């Protein structure tokens, strides 16, 4: 049970519960609280390189954790997260914040408590070539919507959620990023902030 007005959430269970069940509850609470405070919890990886922060979205298995590991190994960026990242409005843009919610196999979590203004959002596409291609506003809105866990399961939030996703991608843009399993995709990301 989540009591937004009382700023309280309760989880009741009997007997031993696996840790993942409790973590899942915390993810749900984080997503609902984020939405009701004007933000959005997004299923994505976030990589911060200098003043630029890039979000990488995609379904499980699309390469988010791989991109984080490759970027870390190549010294290209600090990861704010590789699974769930919090977005909050700031000025004319959106700031990405690291969260405690990472994929379990990821070891390097140095950016978990960091944040950065979002420079661009990319949908990961595994490919043999490296290039970016633009996405229309509706497709980008739909992609972000599909990656807004919990909030996109709640009918009461649907109308507002579409508008919020649209607002985010209008500010940050979204492109499809075709990439292969090396850090070469940074040539595209670096170009986008030039």
């Amino acid at each position: 049970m989540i009591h937004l007005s009382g700023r309280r959430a309760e989880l009741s269970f009997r007997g031993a519960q696996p840790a993942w069940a409790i973590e899942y509850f915390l993810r749900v609470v984080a997503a609902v609280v984020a939405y009701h405070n004007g933000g959005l919890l997004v299923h994505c990886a976030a990589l911060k390189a200098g003043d630029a922060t890039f979000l990488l979205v995609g379904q499980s298995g699309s390469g988010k954790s791989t991109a984080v590991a490759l970027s870390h190994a190549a010294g290209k960026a600090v990861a704010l997260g590789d699974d769930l990242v919090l977005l909050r409005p700031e000025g004319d843009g959106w700031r990405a914040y690291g969260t405690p919610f990472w994929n379990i196999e990821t070891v390097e979590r140095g950016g978990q408590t960091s944040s950065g203004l979002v420079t661009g959002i990319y949908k990961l596409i595994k490919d043999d070539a490296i290039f970016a291609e633009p996405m229309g506003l509706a497709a980008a809105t739909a992609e972000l919507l599909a990656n807004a866990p919990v909030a996109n399961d709640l009918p009461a939030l649907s109308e507002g959620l579409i508008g919020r996703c649209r607002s985010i991608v209008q500010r940050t843009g979204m492109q499809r990023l075709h990439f292969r399993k090396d850090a070469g995709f940074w040539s595209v990301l670096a170009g986008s902030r030039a």
Partner: protein
Amino acid sequence: MLLTDIPRRAPGVAGRTVDDEAVLIHPQQGKVRVLNSVGARLWELADGERTISEMAAVIAGEYAVSPTRAESDALKFCTELIERGLLTFEG
């Protein structure tokens, strides 16, 4: 499904127009869908008051498409969206 059927947007499904297209979300299915310009207009017209034939007539008047083709496309569109749980209809 017939041209005389009256489709309406399914309860619980939310949609908004974005740049002439429409973004739909079906929270219970966890599905998100994008409709092109004509699809977005048909979605808007599926208000539970117009028949598919009447919706098609609006499309034929607004887009460069024959009435026959508009009816065929509108019927196909509504059938698909009903199968996906995005529209319901009254006979």
